[in-house]
Each structure stands twice: as structure tokens, then as C-alpha cells.
């Protein structure tokens, strides 16, 4: 009964596209609703891409500023509002990362993440925290074009097609990048380093028949 009521309530909620239309007309409530729905996605994408909460804040703000100023540009036939926003966020992140590249180091990200209270509060144990930090660090160490695919497809659960739209590339490219990125990550996050020699030995004996 409750589930049915939830479904009915969701169906009566305005879609993102309707909210953008209202935003074009200067409806602040629509903007607030859209922000409430989508800002966390944008923030997390920027956070995973940069590893820096303050940059993620800036990117989220900048993304929605662009939405305020250019909401009329949005074309619903070209993709969902979420994709539109992620596309803007991606451009913002890449621009900032390129500007700051000479001074950004992966270890610095790691250090800042260590101080992130929100992450700490959600981790049940130190070991788990360490593991998650290691995953974060591994993702941050990926080249940008692999990193963004992993974040979108794995962490944000965006479909291949939508990811391809956001990254402005072919679906096949997304698949191949993700495959390569996963291979790099799997290698970096191998459970026991001492097994690597065994793994290498196994690799040499793999069957290609």
C-alpha cells in the first residue's frame, strides 16, 4: 500500500525537464527542487574526479550557475537533465584540473580525503576506511579519460549510452575505456601484493586456444 502510494506520489512529481522549463520562466521553486534532486550527483562526480571537497563544491556551484544562465539552451531531445548537468560538471572539473595540474598530487588528495569528516562518519571500521581510501586513491591515479568513465559507469551507475553522451564519444569507446580502467584498477587493488608474482606466472600460462 505504501509502495503504491509512493509510486503515485512519484508519478505526480514534475520531471526534471518540466522543472527546467519552469526555471527558464524564473521559477525559483523549480530551481530549488532541481538542485535538491541533482546536486549530490554533481558534487560526488566532482569529488571523485578531483578528490577535493572544496573543488567539488565550486564545481557544483558553477554547474548550477550555468544552468541558471543557460537553462534555455537545454534540449530535452538530446539527453536527460542529469546528463546535461554532468556534462557541464565534467567540463568544469577538467578545466580546473588542467589549470591546477602542476600542483596537484595524488598523495595530496589522499591526505585531504583522510581529513574528510563526512567519509569518516559513514565508515564502520578503520579497515573499511582504509580500503575505501585505497579505492579512491586508485581512481584518482587513473588518467582523466579512464577516471571519468569509472566514476560515471561504476560509482554513478550511469548507462553506457548516457555516459557516451556526456563524454561526447561512442558507446564502444566507453566500453573499451572502462575495460582498460578496470584492468588498471584491479591491478592496483590486488588483495595481496605477494600474489602478484603468482598472478604473473599464471598470466604466462594462460590459454589462448
Amino acid at each position, binding site marked *: 500500500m505504501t509502495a503504491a502510494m509512493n509510486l503515485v506520489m512519484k508519478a505526480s512529481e514534475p520531471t526534471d525537464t518540466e522543472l527546467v522549463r519552469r526555471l527558464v520562466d524564473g521559477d525559483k521553486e523549480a530551481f530549488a527542487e532541481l538542485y535538491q534532486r541533482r*546536486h549530490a550527483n554533481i558534487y560526488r562526480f566532482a*569529488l571523485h574526479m578531483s578528490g577535493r571537497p572544496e573543488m567539488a563544491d565550486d564545481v557544483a556551484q558553477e554547474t548550477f550557475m550555468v544552468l541558471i544562465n543557460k537553462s534555455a539552451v537545454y534540449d530535452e531531445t538530446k539527453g536527460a537533465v542529469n546528463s546535461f548537468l554532468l556534462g557541464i560538471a565534467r567540463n568544469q572539473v577538467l578545466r580546473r584540473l588542467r589549470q591546477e595540474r602542476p600542483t596537484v598530487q595524488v598523495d595530496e588528495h589522499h591526505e585531504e580525503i583522510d581529513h574528510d569528516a563526512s567519509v569518516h562518519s*559513514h*565508515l564502520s571500521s578503520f579497515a573499511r576506511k582504509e*580500503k575505501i581510501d585505497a579505492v579512491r586513491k586508485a581512481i584518482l591515479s587513473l588518467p582523466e579519460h579512464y577516471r571519468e568513465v569509472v566514476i560515471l559507469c561504476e560509482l554513478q551507475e550511469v548507462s553506457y549510452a548516457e555516459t557516451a553522451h556526456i563524454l561526447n564519444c561512442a558507446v564502444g569507446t566507453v566500453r573499451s575505456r572502462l575495460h582498460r580502467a578496470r584492468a588498471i584498477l584491479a591491478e592496483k*587493488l590486488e588483495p595481496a601484493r605477494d600474489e602478484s608474482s603468482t598472478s604473473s606466472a599464471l598470466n604466462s600460462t594462460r590459454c589462448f586456444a
Partner: protein
Amino acid sequence: MNCQTFSELAGDIARDQMMDAAVRAQALAHADDCIACSVELRAQEHLTSNLRELAAATKHETASPVVWERLSADFDSRTVTHLKSSRRRGIYVAGAIAAMLILAFGLVQIARYRESINVEATIAATFTPALPAQTIDERKEKNVIVAVKQRPQVVRHRLSPLSPTTRGLTPAINQPKEIATDFILLTYDGEVGSEAQLVRMELPRSAMASFGLPVNMDRADQRVKADVLLGADGLARAIRFVQ
């Protein structure tokens, strides 16, 4: 299935992606037989688990409240600016329209004023001081004379070829009690000069016939009033008949 193909599918299998059931079964069967592929599949599953854990751990991370405060303020200021600019634009448009109306009204008034001066000047030139038999209002005549004195060049210009302009002004000098024909030139050059005089006289009605005007023969013996325009030399330049 070989290891190369399996490697391409390992990620999708570990992520539980939709795929052909037969292909999936083949891949899993291959992993059971091949140790290397089995290890790779475990590594991929481990990676998937780690990534999902990270996604779950960061699921509730959101931007700081300051971001919304800034955006909200920016949205408000943008709306206010937009309203102000549109209101200001409306005021500018209204002002421009008002200015144009005032300008148009002023131009019309100036044109009317000039026209009235020209008419008065022309009348003055036509009716110089000696107009003994005129029925035109004396006060107006006085004004006209003053106008003529003040603007002699206008008078000269208006008077020298005596025709369309002067003829067109005939209704202006006619008073309600009188109906007059247009001036009929008595000389070829039509030059009147600035000292022209208009003399009212009476002629036999039959005289109208000599100017090509229709005459009622029943009243041919009656007399008709006529205005004769005399030049400075005393010779008649034009004539009109008045009823």
C-alpha cells in the same frame, strides 16, 4: 571461448551486466577450466565489490550548504536585475514615445504657425492699405499690413507670379457674406508688384460674358460687383467677380 574473449567479458560478468545467457555460461565454464581467467574474474569481482563499497560510502555526501546559499542569492539578484532592467526598458520606451509625441506636436504647431504667417503675408500683399471698399475685417487687415511690413521678402515672393498660389488663397480672403470667382488675369505677365491695390467696383453683368463666365440673360441688365487688382502703375492686372 578463449582467454582473450573471456578477458573482454570478465568486467561485465563481475558487474552483473546484462548479456546473452549462453555467452555468460560459456565464460563461466571457461573460468572453471582456466586458472588465470578464474583469478582475473575474482579480481574483477573484488574490484566491483570495492567500487560499490566506495559508492555506498559516498552515497550521502553532498555539497556544503554554502553552495545553495550562494546559488539562491545569485538567482534572486539575477531575477531582480532582470526585473529592474525590464522595468527600466519600459520606462525608456515610454519616455521615447512621449518625446516623439511632443516633438511631433511641436513640429505641427510650428508648421501651422508658419502657414498662418504666410497666409497673412499673402493677404497683406494682396490687400495693401488702400482698400476702401473692402468688407474684410479692419482689425485683421491692420495685422496683415504689419506683417507685410515686417516680412517684405515673403510678400514679394508670394506675389510675383500671381496665380496658383494667389488663386488658391481666394477662399481665405472671402468673407462669409461674399462669394467670389478666382482672379482672372488681365495681362500676360501676371506681375503685380508689391504696391498692388484692390479696388471694388460694379460692372454690368454682361461684362462677365467677355471673360467667358456664364450670364443669366434675364439679369443681364443688373450690375455685378467686381474686385480689380491694380498694379503700381494704375493698370488693372486681374479681376474677380463677387456676389
